[in-house]
């Protein structure tokens, strides 16, 4: 009898009472899972950055990095990606305030900045191809295209995620109660940004 009574009442929390999904870690699973993913992604990107460094200066066939790199152009695309991080945090601030109009604006701005970065990368890859650099040309081409291409794939995934959130926000299905969803998407987006900070410095700027 007591068991039946308990079963009837157990799952229903009192309004405003303890969260039934609360965890022993003291943080929500969604956010912790994202941080664990980002932590593992450090090793993922670290492997490809190391591969680039390992084969740096060992290409026997041209073109070499100094023949194809366009630092001013890549600096502009890096600036655009940095600005997308700003619009991303502004979208989080907007949803926390309940300002849904600005939330939609900043989410779309972030996605557009990301798309501009990808467009720049496609342009860069096309230029490199015209100058004779392909993934199979030499060691530089192989490691460069794999590393920056994988980063570009991450950015593309982030753009799709942001557009999904924008779609939900446009339908009124993203409210202040869903702030954590925007925050987790933001964590992913900022991570993509910090990985580019490393790639821009190590791959493009540091001299051989």
């Amino acid at each position, binding site marked *: 009898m007591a068991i039946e009574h*308990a079963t009837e009442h157990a799952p229903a929390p009192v309004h405003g009472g*303890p*969260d039934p999904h609360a965890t022993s870690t003291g943080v929500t699973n969604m956010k912790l899972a994202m941080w664990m993913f980002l932590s593992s992604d450090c090793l993922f990107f670290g492997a490809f950055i190391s591969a680039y460094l*390992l084969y740096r200066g060992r290409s026997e066939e041209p073109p070499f990095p100094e023949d194809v790199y366009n630092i001013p152009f890549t*600096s502009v695309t890096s600036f655009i990606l940095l600005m997308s991080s700003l619009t991303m945090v502004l979208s989080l601030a907007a949803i926390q305030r309940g300002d849904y109009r600005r939330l939609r604006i900043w989410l779309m701005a972030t996605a557009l900045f990301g798309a501009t970065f990808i467009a720049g990368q496609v342009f860069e890859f096309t230029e490199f191809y015209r100058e004779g650099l392909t993934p199979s040309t030499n060691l530089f081409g192989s490691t460069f295209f794999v590393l920056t291409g994988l980063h570009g794939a991450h950015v593309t995934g982030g753009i799709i995620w942001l557009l999904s959130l924008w779609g939900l926000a446009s339908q009124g299905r993203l409210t202040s109660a869903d*702030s954590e969803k925007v925050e987790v998407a933001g964590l992913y987006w900022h991570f993509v*940004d910090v990985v580019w900070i490393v790639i821009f410095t190590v791959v493009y700027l*540091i001299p051989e």
Partner: protein
Amino acid sequence: MADEQQPTETTETEPKRGAVAALEHPGQELEHLAEEHLPPGVTEPAPGLLPGEVRPHPSPLKYVVIALVLVVITAAEVWVSYLEDVIPNGMIIVLLLLFGVLKFSMVAAWYMHLRTDKPIFRNFFVLGVVAAVSLYFVVLLTLHVLD
């Protein structure tokens, strides 16, 4: 009457915990159990705070100021990379790495909110970064890339 009062006295002198207490006193004990197993601030974060936050996020103005600093550092990075004929390559590499670490830390601390969130997130991220840097540093050292 005596039979009805007996369980109440037992609960007061030796409080039962876990599933037994939950089954015997469903209405009160479940709520109490949930509260006592949760770290403070988890179930009901302070108004305006997200789950896992310790302090409020920075203001939008502060975010803009941080973005400006990041842009200035990026400009300095690009400028330093053009100084190959002016300063030694070793100095350029050190400066570029310093700028890179500074930008990385600023984004992680301010935009990813590691400054204001619970330390468990920072610990996870630092673990990943340190593991990656250590592992690949040893690999590159072993393969004489850093000689």
